[in-house]
């Protein structure tokens, strides 16, 4: 049983109520096709469990095999600094086959973010440390690829699909209820 080592804090990107009985945490990579496929699965689970489910996203860019994963993660952090993390998160996954500066600029523009500041932030590595710290916390928590999910702090090793994950969440809900 592999456990999450780094607790969830206000520095995390969180959707849903703090007191929700279920927390689903994902370590993901915007360039990873499996994460791209997992995104609508997470949304379906959020719909199904409603207020009972809180969702947290952390970065785990596999930069050696995904050359744009790091810059995409930093772009989402930039958006997060302007309270648009989730909007950018969704847009990056929807456009994951086109990752790169032209896309980031276009998406930032679409979300009304200061484009010049984005370019500067990527150039200076303003958000590199935040992304690295997510990555390190993942390594120490036994993240073994992307996406890796944790349900209430325990690594979920089952298949990534709505049925299996909903079953695991329902099982956990019964345990904590």
């Amino acid at each position, binding site marked *: 049983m592999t456990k999450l080592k780094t607790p969830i804090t206000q520095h995390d990107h969180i959707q849903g109520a703090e007191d929700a009985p279920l927390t689903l945490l994902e370590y993901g990579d915007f360039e990873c096709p499996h994460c791209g496929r997992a995104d609508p699965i997470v949304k379906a689970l959020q719909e199904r469990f409603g207020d009972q489910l809180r969702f947290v996203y952390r970065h785990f860019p596999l930069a050696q095999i995904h050359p744009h994963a790091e810059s995409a993660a930093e772009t989402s952090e930039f958006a997060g600094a302007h309270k648009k993390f989730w909007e950018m998160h969704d847009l990056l996954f929807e456009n994951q086959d086109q990752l790169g500066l032209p896309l980031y600029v276009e998406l930032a523009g679409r979300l009304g973010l200061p484009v010049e500041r984005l370019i500067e932030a990527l150039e200076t590595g303003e958000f590199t440390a935040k992304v690295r710290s997510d990555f390190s916390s993942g*390594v120490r928590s036994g993240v073994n690829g992307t996406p890796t999910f944790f349900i209430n702090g325990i690594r979920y090793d089952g298949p990534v699909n709505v049925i299996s994950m909903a079953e695991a969440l329902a099982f956990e809900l019964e345990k904590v209820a």
Partner: protein
Amino acid sequence: MPILGRGIEAPDFNLHVTPDQTLSLSELRGRPVVLAFYPADWSPVCGDQMALYNEILPEFQNHQAEILGISVDGAWCHAAYARQNKLHFPLLSDFEPKGEVARKYGAYRQKDGVCERALFVIDEEGKIFWSYCSPVAVNPGADGILEALEELSAEKGKRNDQVKDADNAA
């Protein structure tokens, strides 16, 4: 036979690391060594496992540790696999006689003819400090390796302090 455990002297080996070069464990004495046995190049789960180690090489290097992947694949196969996945650490071929080294570590799956997914952290003096065998379908991640390396570094720090204290006392 279960995999070799803590305190046992790690069996030495000399294996191909490229088609024309070999590497011995004893050459790495003085540094911690992470030995990661895995079933095969190109199988989907190990791709992830080796790719993961590749991403966290800097963390291993913080402990001056050397990481070696090892499977029964041949050196040319390893070369193609490493190129494809841009791996920056050596892969050893336990190829002839097949699986001989894995057998010495208790990390050979006779039935399947491949290595177990077994991890060893070997200390500076060549003794096994930590080992773990994962179910073959589960990528074990790197948390166990890093914890072992941290513990090893901490022990070394303590020993150095003792030596310093002794020196100061003298």
